[in-house]
């Protein structure tokens, strides 16, 4: 319990620190944000109005406190370009990105964990070596290229087996679930294969260390086959680390997600954020970056707690 409280405090402090960092990063712009945003032909009056609108005429400290206060009220601010609230934009973009990430994670786990087990358990040393090599190569493919290869293979229209859409997402969101899933299929597969290869390597190496250990011997001596012992006992023993890795992979997946969303023209958080950065939409970028940071810090927090919960030994050896 003490660990949870300490970890929670760390989370809050880190969140606070990162909010300052994000805020500062967007204020050290060389030159005036407002004049950049307003464009080359803007009159001084227009620029001044924009400055006021952005709150840039106030002191930095004031701006920061205002921003933080509105964040605490759940208000992410208003996009200067579209006039829409950033919150609602994030909401609609999330409805693409989160299903994408979840589907990719499902693909990754469905591929990575069983294949990782197989890379340890397969009887033939050739199969084991082949699976290991496949995991290394798949993990070395840039997300962009992986996506391109899948488009070449499966894209409706131009692919070899043209069965899936490769561009865009239904305009009206999740009304037509099937077509939504279809448009997420290739992106999720791209991301899932790449992330899955990492998971596979990790599963393989952690089980490989366990497979000739006394724990597996013991489970086998009790009457399990090697396969069952590795899957039941080995995976359970590797679970705390595996969960940490999956959690951190989840976080690292956002890079791939951004690439994949751009490639497949999905209106998700990643593509949206990149577009906002390109448009220099100050408030939107600032709030979204902070939300992302908060999300990943929360992820790290949860993973640490879960790791603890899965490993009863850790709690009893005292705090680290």
């Amino acid at each position: 319990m003490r660990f949870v409280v300490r970890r929670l405090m760390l989370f809050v402090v880190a969140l606070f620190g990162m909010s300052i960092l994000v805020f500062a990063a967007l204020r050290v712009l060389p030159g005036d944000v407002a004049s950049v945003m307003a464009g080359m032909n803007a009159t001084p009056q227009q620029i001044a109005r924009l400055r006021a609108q952005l709150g840039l005429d106030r002191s930095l400290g004031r701006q920061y406190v205002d921003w933080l206060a509105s964040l605490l009220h759940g208000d992410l601010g208003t996009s200067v370009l579209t006039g829409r609230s950033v919150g609602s934009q994030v909401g609609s973009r999330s409805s693409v990105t989160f299903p994408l990430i979840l589907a990719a994670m499902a693909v990754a786990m469905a591929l990575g964990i069983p294949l990782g087990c197989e890379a340890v358990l397969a009887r033939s040393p050739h199969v084991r070596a082949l699976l290991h090599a496949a995991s290394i190569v798949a993990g070395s493919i840039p997300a962009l290229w992986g996506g391109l290869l899948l488009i070449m293979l499966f894209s409706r229209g131009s692919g070899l087996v043209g069965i899936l859409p490769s561009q865009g997402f239904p305009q009206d969101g999740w009304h037509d679930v099937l077509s939504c899933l279809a448009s997420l299929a290739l992106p999720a597969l791209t991301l899932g294969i790449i992330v899955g290869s990492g998971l596979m390597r990790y599963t393989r190496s952690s089980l490989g260390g366990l497979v000739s250990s006394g724990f597996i011997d013991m489970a086998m001596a009790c009457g399990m086959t090697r396969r069952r012992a590795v899957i039941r006992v080995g995976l359970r023993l590797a679970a705390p680390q595996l969960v940490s890795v999956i959690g951190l992979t989840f976080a690292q997946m956002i890079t791939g997600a951004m690439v994949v969303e751009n490639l497949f023209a999905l209106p998700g958080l990643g593509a949206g954020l990149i577009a906002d950065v390109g448009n220099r939409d100050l408030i939107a970028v600032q709030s979204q970056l902070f939300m992302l940071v908060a999300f990943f810090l929360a992820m790290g927090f949860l993973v640490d707690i879960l790791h603890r919960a899965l490993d009863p030994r850790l709690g009893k050896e005292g705090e680290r």
Partner: protein
Amino acid sequence: MMDGVMIVLRSVWRRAEGRFSLTVLCLWVAVSVVSLFWTPQPITNTDGYHVWASGSLRHPLGTDGAGADVLSWLMAGSYVDLLIVVATVAFSAILGVALVSAMVARSVMLSSVSVVVVDALISIPTVVLALIVAVPLGASIAVVIVACSIGYGLNLARVARPQALLAARSEYVVSAAASGVTGLRILATHILPAIVPTMAVQLSLSAGTSILAESGLTYLGIGVPSGVPSWGHSLSTSASFVNVYPFAALWPGLVITVVVTALNVFGDMLRDAVDPVVNPRLRRDRTRAGRRS
């Protein structure tokens, strides 16, 4: 030290996949150096009449959307990627060593603060770090290097910490500290050598990841700016035309995948080669040199 490096490299070379990775890596460095003086075509040479051309004698790998020679761009790009990798490895090593040193410092204040910083920041992905840098400063090679160095430096610190702690608590160090040897000296002679193998493995894996990061960030418009050759740049420019010219993306993607595979294989083999338990040659060297840990 040099002896150890040679022994490790020789153990890597002894296996087929090790030869593959060392060959690819040497080839990469050689091509990078050559590209500084010579490419088949100047990379600024464009030919509006022959865009997206397929391979020919003049353009072995074809031309890109501007009619420039793909092979020349890839060669020039290998230099930029090498630069990014070397800089990332160097800076993340420096950051990692600094953080590890702080984490095992005798000052409780310093060690707990650094542990907290690493624990908190480790979950922030490279692309978010890159955005925080790129939004104010714009796309540049430096963005890739800074974001990757911070991310991988933190990771390095986290991975190497247990070994450093083990070394810091060894009887060797305790007795050295008791006899008045300064902390920095202990760090340099006892603790840092203990984490060199782990660092070598992590850094070679990070090298591969930084190439992948370069291609991703460049595609997103926050990495290598347009006009500067890099593998990620070559891949990105062909991405938008995949439906029309599907094979344009083949070469840059292949180059990245092969080089990153080589780095990952190298890292994996390094893990075995630097482990005195697995590699008896190293063990012999250690005992002969008389520095047992």
